[in-house]
C-alpha cells in the first residue's frame, strides 16, 4: 500500500507527474459514449408501445380492469433498468451511462430527456384519437426516432468532449 506520508520536499518531476495524472483523469468516464447502448432505445420504444396499447384498451375499449397493470409500471421500471444495466455490464465490463458518467454529461442527459416530453404528449393524442394500428405503429416508430436522436446526440457530445484537449 502506498504511504500516506508525502515526501518532505516533492521534486518538480514528482509534481509534474501529479499534474499529468490530474489532467489525464479529468477526461473522465464514458466520454467515448460507450455507456450509451442502443438497447435502451429499443427497450424504451417497446415500453412506450406497450403503455400506449394499455392506455388504448383502458380509454377506448373501456377495459378498466387493466388499470391495475398501470400501477405495476413504477415497480417494473427500476427492475427493468437494473436488469438492463446488468446485461450491459456483462457485455462491456462496466455499467451504462448512469454511473461512470462525467458530471457534464449528466446535465446533457437531463436536458435531452426533456426532448421526450413532446413525444409522450403526441402518444396521448394518438391514443385518444387514432385507430389501434396507428397507435401501435406510430408510437413505436416515433419512440425509436426520438430516443434514437437522443442517444445519437448524447454519443456525439460525449465523443466531442473526449476529443477536446
Amino acid at each position, binding site marked *: 500500500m502506498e504511504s500516506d506520508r508525502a515526501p518532505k*520536499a*516533492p521534486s518538480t518531476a514528482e*509534481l509534474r507527474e501529479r499534474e499529468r*495524472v490530474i489532467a489525464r*483523469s479529468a477526461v473522465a*468516464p464514458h466520454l467515448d459514449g460507450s455507456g450509451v447502448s442502443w438497447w435502451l432505445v429499443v427497450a424504451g420504444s417497446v415500453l412506450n408501445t406497450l403503455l400506449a396499447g394499455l392506455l388504448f384498451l383502458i380509454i377506448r375499449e373501456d377495459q378498466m380492469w387493466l388499470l391495475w397493470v398501470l400501477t405495476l409500471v413504477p415497480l417494473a421500471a427500476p427492475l427493468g433498468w437494473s436488469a438492463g444495466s446488468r446485461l450491459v455490464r456483462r457485455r462491456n465490463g462496466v455499467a451504462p451511462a448512469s*454511473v*461512470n458518467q462525467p458530471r457534464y454529461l449528466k446535465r446533457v442527459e437531463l436536458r435531452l430527456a426533456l426532448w421526450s416530453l413532446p413525444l409522450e404528449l403526441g402518444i396521448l393524442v394518438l391514443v385518444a384519437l387514432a385507430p389501434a394500428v396507428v397507435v401501435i405503429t406510430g408510437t413505436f416508430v416515433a419512440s425509436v426516432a426520438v430516443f434514437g436522436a437522443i442517444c445519437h446526440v448524447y454519443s456525439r457530445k460525449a465523443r466531442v468532449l473526449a476529443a477536446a484537449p
Partner: protein
Amino acid sequence: MTAGLDPVIHPVKRLAAMSILANSHSAEHAYLRQKLELSDSDLSKQMKALVEAGYVSSRKTGIGRGGATIYAITPNGRAAHTAYVAQLGKLLGGT
C-alpha cells in the same frame, strides 16, 4: 501535510482515482480498476484509505456476480481535491 499537499491523496493511484471521481457522477470499482490499470486488491486498498478519510463514499448494488461497488466523491473529498490541485498549481507556479 508536507508542502501543503494532502498526504491522503498525494499517492499517484489515489490522486488519479480522486480526479476521476471529482469529474464523475460516480464510478464503479470495475471501471476504476480498468482505467487505473490496478489489481482488485490494490484498488480496494487505495479506495479503503479514501473512504476512511471521508473523501469517498462507497455503496454496493446487487448481489453475487451481478453486484458492483460504486464510489462517489464526498463534499469533503471534493474540497480536499480542489485544495490539492490549487496547492499543486502554486508549487509548480513557483518553480
